[in-house]
C-alpha cells in the first residue's frame, strides 16, 4: 500500500467531493479515509488514499489533481504520507 495524503482547500461549493472521488475512481486510487471542516463558506478536506493501483508517475497524479482543482475552484495537493508521519509521530 502506498499511502498519499490529498488535501483540498477553497470555497465550498456543491459537488466538490464527488468530482475528486470520480477522479480517484477513474485512476484506480482507493480512498481509505476522509475528514473535513467547513465554515464561512470555506472547506478544508483531507483524504488518505492508496495510490498503489495508480499507473502513472507521482507527477501525473499532481497534474491530474491540479486540473480537478481548477474545475472545482479549490487548491488540491498530494503528498506522500511519510512527511506527516515523520513530523508528528515519534
Amino acid at each position, binding site marked *: 500500500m502506498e499511502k498519499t495524503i490529498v488535501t483540498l482547500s477553497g470555497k465550498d461549493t456543491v459537488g466538490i467531493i464527488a468530482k475528486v472521488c470520480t477522479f480517484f475512481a477513474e485512476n484506480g486510487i482507493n480512498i481509505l*479515509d476522509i475528514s*473535513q471542516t467547513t465554515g464561512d463558506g470555506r472547506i478544508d478536506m483531507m483524504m488518505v488514499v492508496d495510490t498503489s493501483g495508480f499507473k502513472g508517475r507521482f*507527477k501525473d497524479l499532481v497534474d491530474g489533481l491540479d486540473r480537478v482543482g481548477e474545475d472545482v475552484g479549490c487548491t488540491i*495537493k*498530494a503528498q506522500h504520507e511519510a*512527511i506527516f508521519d515523520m513530523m*508528528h509521530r515519534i
Partner: protein
Amino acid sequence: MITLSEVLETNNMIQHENLDVRTITLGINLMDCMTDDLDRLNENIYSKITRLAKDLVSVGEEISLEYGIPIVNKRISVTPIGIVGSPACRSPEDFVTIAKTLDRAAAKVGVNFIGGYSALVMKDMTSSDRMLMESIPEALAETENVCSSISVGSTRAGINMDAVRMMGDIIIRTAEATRDRDSIGCAKLVVFCNPADDNPFMAGAFHGVVEGDAVINVGVSGPGVVKTAVEKVKGENFEVLCETIKRTAFKVTRIGQLVGHEAARRLGIPFGILDLSLAPTPAVGDSIADILQGMGLERVGAPGTTAALAILNDQVKKGGVMASSYVGGLSGAFIPVSEDRSMAEAAEIGALTLEKLEAMTCVCSVGLDMIAVPGSTSAATISGIIADEMAIGMVNQKTTAVRLIPVIGKEAGDHAEFGGLLGSAPIMPVNTYRCDGFVDRGGRIPAPIHSFKN
C-alpha cells in the same frame, strides 16, 4: 492515522512560514582525480563531478514534488582543492583553471554553488596551499558558482597568523576584483577556525579528508516556523519559551531527516549528516533577528541579544538532535547580516554593531557573516577582525568564521546589493584604530592549554 489538524499544521509551516529544506549537498571525494598533469587533472575532476552529480538536481525536484516540501538548493562540495591540485599546479594561475573546471561542472549538473576551493592551513601552509590562496581573487572573479574557504586555526593547532595576515590582503584583492558588483567575490569566501568536514552550507562547504567517496549532507531550515511559535508564547516564562523552540526544532528537523534519507536512497549514495542550522533568507519573516525580537527585544542588538541567541541555539540543538540519527555540520543559528532582512535593518539604524555581532558569535554558529564594511578598510584591520574571531573559536572549541565584504568605493552608511539569497546590507562602520603592529608579527598563536587532553 494522521489527523487533519496535523496535516494543516505541516502545510501551514510550508506555505506561510517558509519551512523548507535549505540544501541537499553532495560531497565528492576528488583524491582519485589527482595527477601531475594539469589538463588531465581538470578532465578527471570534471568527469567525476558530472558523473556522480548528474541526477542530484532531478532527484531533489522529485522529492520536493512528492512530499510537497521546497528544497531550495542542490549543491556540491569537493575535497579541498589545495590538496587535489598539489601535484599538478605550479602557479596560482594553474589553480584558477581548476576553479573554472569546477564552475563548468556545477553549471553542467545545474547546482547553484560548488564549495571546496579550499585550503586547510591551521598550522602551516604548503606551497600548494599558498598558491591556491594567492589565486582566490582571480578564481572568484572569473567564476560564478565556486565558493572558497580557508581554515586558518583550530583548537588543536592554534592560529596560523601568517595565513590570517595573508587573508586580509586576499579579501581586499577579491573585493577589488569584483568591485563592479559590490565586491560580491567576498560573499563566496570564508575564513574558518575549527571547520566542519561535513558542512552542507555555502560558502564554507568542503568534502573533508575524513569523508568517504561520496556523501549526502542536508541542511534544514525554518526560522519563520520558530518565529511564529515564539510569538505564540509571548510573555510566558523561559521554561515555556525553551520548550516551544525545542518542540518546533524537532518538527522542522524531522523533515530534513526524511529528505536526507530519501535523497541518499534514490542517488545510491550514503547519508552523512543533517545540519540543524537555522538559516535565514532575505524573505519577509524568514529571519533569525525576528525570532530574537519575538523573544522580547525591541531590536536585535539590544542588551539581552546574546542571551536570547544562546537560548535559541541551544534549544534548536536539543530539539534537533533527537529528530535525526546523525547530526553534524555547523548546527546552530546563522546570523548573516545581508541575508536576514531584520538583521540588516537593525544594522542600518545602528541598533546592531560589529562588536555586538562578535559577541553573538560566541554562542552560535558560525561567525561574522555577510557583513559589508567600508571599502577603505585596511587589509591589516581585516586580519585583526579575523584574528579576533578565530580566537573565539579556538578558545571555545567551536567553529567560527569570517565572511566580510569590504565594498570598494562605498563607505559606512552606504548600501550594498548582492542579489538573491545573498541579500543586501548597509555598510557597517569598523573600528579604525590600527592593529598592524599585532597582525604583522608573523608566526603562529599556540594552541590553548585546554587543547592538551591526551
